[in-house]
């Protein structure tokens, strides 16, 4: 207990005792955050790799599955997420410059855009549920991509018809439509994992908002804002790849059948 405050230099209350300076502390935590993000990149990267391999193996089925998703909503969601990345970057800027009110506004905007994204995603999920495109038989109406749903409009979500319009022979089209279950498994696994990251991000943003409200961040100390910003931008980057992979790259795949 011989710790003498008189010999210790005046330092920022947020400086942990194992660090000499605030700069060193920030550098260490940025490094740590990036190492964490790299493990996340490898996790999503594994899914991307598996997706590309199965797309190669079941190309026609992936064309059918991908064409059944509404690109416009995916496009709108991409813009929403890019917008939230901008407001997040602005929140970090406000923290760096000690602008407490602006920081709170930007964090709130980021959360609103994040919730908007998840709202659109929920709408898209419901559409897939309505078209009987949920893999397996567990959730409500079982997977039925060939003949449309049993109840209601029998033509709804009929992927076999779509494939036939792309010059796939009728017998093959029905079988290939069954294989779109693989595409939708990837679709829900990848967008679901992404949405989970968004939910976690929203929770962390709410925590940041409360800390910002208490005026804890300023030019000297804004590491938590910076690191949450890195996480949020990472989630944005994952979507930047998910959008073309799931919605765009397989849509024009008809020429291979003729």
């Amino acid at each position: 207990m011989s710790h003498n405050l008189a010999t210790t230099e005046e330092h920022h209350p947020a400086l942990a005792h194992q660090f000499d300076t605030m700069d060193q502390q920030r550098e260490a935590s940025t490094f740590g955050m990036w190492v964490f993000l790299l493990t996340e990149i490898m996790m999503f990267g594994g899914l991307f790799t598996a997706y590309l391999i199965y797309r190669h193996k079941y190309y026609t089925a992936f064309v059918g599955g991908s064409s059944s998703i509404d690109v416009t909503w995916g496009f709108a969601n991409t813009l929403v997420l890019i917008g939230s990345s901008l407001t997040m970057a602005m929140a970090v800027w406000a923290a760096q410059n000690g602008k407490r009110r602006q920081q709170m506004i930007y964090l709130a905007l980021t959360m609103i855009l994040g919730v908007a994204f998840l709202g659109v995603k929920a709408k898209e999920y419901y559409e897939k549920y309505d078209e009987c495109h949920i893999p397996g038989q567990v959730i409500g109406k079982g997977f039925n991509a060939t003949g449309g749903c049993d109840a209601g409009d029998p033509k709804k979500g009929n992927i076999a018809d779509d494939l036939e319009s792309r010059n796939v022979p009728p017998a093959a089209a029905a079988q290939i439509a069954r294989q779109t279950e693989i595409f939708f498994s990837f679709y829900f696994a990848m967008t679901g994992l992404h949405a989970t990251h968004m939910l976690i991000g929203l929770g962390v943003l709410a925590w940041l908002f409360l800390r910002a409200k208490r005026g804890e961040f300023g030019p000297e100390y804004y590491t938590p804002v910076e690191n949450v910003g890195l996480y949020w931008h990472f989630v944005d980057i994952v979507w930047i790849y998910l959008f073309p992979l799931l919605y765009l790259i397989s849509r024009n795949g008809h020429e291979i059948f003729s």
Partner: protein
Amino acid sequence: MESTMEHAHPSRKLYLLIFFALVVGTCVTYLVAKIDLGIWNPVIALAIACIKAILVILFFMHIRYSSKLTILTVCAGFFWLLIMITLSLTDYLTRL
């Protein structure tokens, strides 16, 4: 030396510029997907995605202004990601 780099934060104007570049990229990728370009559709879509990701990493994630240690960490990570994707695909795409 590092503290001099600390103060080179990007301005709000630059953030807006990057945002508009990302919006333009998204619109282009959306419109190009509606045109049938055969093999070039996925190539263009993924090239635009890569440009967008690089813009986000460099500016929104401040890698352009980071220390060499952080830059090296990020590069190493993406290098391993590329190894995973390319080596896996060279196998599966060349099987008879």
